[in-house]
């Protein structure tokens, strides 16, 4: 089973790297969007290999479908971009983008090598030890949905609610932006009082 696990891991990683490169280097923006779907699904595959089934499915439903559909819509509605072939321009702006992504890369590299172990030892948020074999077996049979649900509604209930506040703010912003000035926002539960 070890061999099969490794085989699938390298297969998924290969697809992930190729599709991630495709997102950046594809000349047409629609192809970039399609290879982004592939990259998101490959990330979901890596989550599955780490026994994080709930996270993997959320990855598919939120990123591979939700985000990319919005992207594809945006590309379709701005018809002129989708016709042209694009390539990286050598401008100061590009260098700036390279610098930011380089900083992110270094941060992630630090996090997955030494930094993570350091942080894990200092704080008790992440456990530095690997989960026991029994824990992994129960995770594989029962899934992680229940554990995530319990954690969200007990230990992390404040961050969870704050996040929902953020979503409501975004929604209200969208309504305010799309509202025409003449729109009647009076609903069925209220009525205007006639003044004599």
């Amino acid at each position: 089973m070890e061999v099969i696990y490794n085989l699938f891991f390298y297969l998924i990683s290969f697809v992930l790297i190729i599709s991630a490169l495709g997102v950046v280097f594809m000349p047409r923006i629609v192809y970039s969007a399609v290879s982004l779907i592939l990259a998101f699904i490959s990330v979901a595959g890596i989550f599955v290999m780490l026994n994080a089934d709930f996270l993997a499915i959320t990855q598919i439903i939120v990123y591979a479908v939700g985000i990319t559909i919005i992207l594809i819509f945006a590309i379709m509605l701005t018809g002129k971009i989708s016709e042209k072939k694009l390539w990286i321009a050598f401008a100061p702006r590009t260098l700036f983008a390279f610098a930011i992504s380089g900083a992110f890369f270094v941060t992630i590299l630090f996090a997955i090598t030494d930094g993570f172990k350091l942080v894990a030892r200092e704080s008790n948020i992440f456990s530095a030890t690997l989960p026991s074999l029994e824990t992994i077996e129960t995770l594989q049979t029962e899934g992680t949905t229940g554990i995530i649900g319990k954690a969200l509604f007990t230990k992390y209930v404040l961050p969870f609610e704050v996040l929902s506040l953020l979503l409501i703010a975004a929604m209200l912003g969208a309504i305010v932006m799309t509202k025409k000035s003449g729109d009647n926002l009076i609903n069925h539960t209220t009525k205007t009082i006639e003044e004599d």
Partner: protein
Amino acid sequence: MHELYMELFNKLGIPEIFGEITWPIIPFVCVAALLIIVVLFLVLMERKVLAWLTIRKGPNRVGPFGFFQTIADAIKLLIKEDIMSKDTNKILFTLAPMIVFAPIMVIYGLMPFTEKFVAINLAAGLFLVFALSSLTTVGIVLAGWASNNKYSLLGGMRSAAQAISYEIPLIISVLSIAVISETLNLSDIVDAQSGGISYNILLNWNIFSWNIWPAFIGFIVFFICSIAEVNRIPFDLPEAESELVSGYNTEYSGMKFALFFLAEYSALFIISVLMVTLFMGGYLSPFNGYLSNILFQNIIHNQIILNIFVHFEQAFWLLAKTYFVILIIMWIRATLPRLRADQLMTFSWKFLLPLSLLNLTIVAIVKYLLNTGNI
């Protein structure tokens, strides 16, 4: 079964690793065969039922009562020329039918057709079903865009808008099922519906413990939304013939069109199986225990043979309920006219969404009272 399969590899002298890799593929081969048979039958059934409802004869030339009509149609589609107009985006045009079809095939593997015939028994199976079914929307939008045809593009856009707005009440109504059965595993959801409401005679029939009773409003919301999800009349705006020729698949022909066609009818079957699994007890019989257990237990004493009979009975109950649901969906197709686009959106956001939230509240209160023992 697994040991038997590995032994075969040992005897042939092929390394065991190939056996381990190919073992998970076998259920998918079975599922693919099942899918083809189901769709072939479903197309014939649809044509016959519609003919019957509109007082016509329907297909009656190929084979007895026209039974081989769909097989003839399938052969015609396979040997047809694959036409691709000059201005289409060739890569995406070819890729789109595959993106539509592949997730639906995986969903077939997730469905519990009998107690044992589940290709992928996953802890979060119910969640994965919706994740994958929403993935088909991406394929439809891409098909509409890649065709470089205004009707296709409009069809694809409409399909995406419809799928997104009807998925929300659909998933909230399904959430009530997760509340009732306390699991996302589809087999466990079916098991949780057995046993009846009391030990008395007649009240211990499985039909009384189906999820349809506590979540009746949810069932209605699910039924309406599922018709919208599979783009059927009265919600068939993405492929409205009178406005958009044929919607997103206008430019397609031959095998690529066949894939869309297959995906559409498989989705109809899948959503009906899901409805039966979630609300109507899945493969459970409506009575207390299985009929074959009661009828044959004095004749057949071999437990293994009896179990085989029980499995066939489970498949029978599932298919009987599923085809009953499909019959009602076809009946609706023959009866109702098409909605307008703005009516479609208003109906989903202003009527179905509040209704599904009401259902969730009712179910949660009932569940709380049951757990604390007040009922």
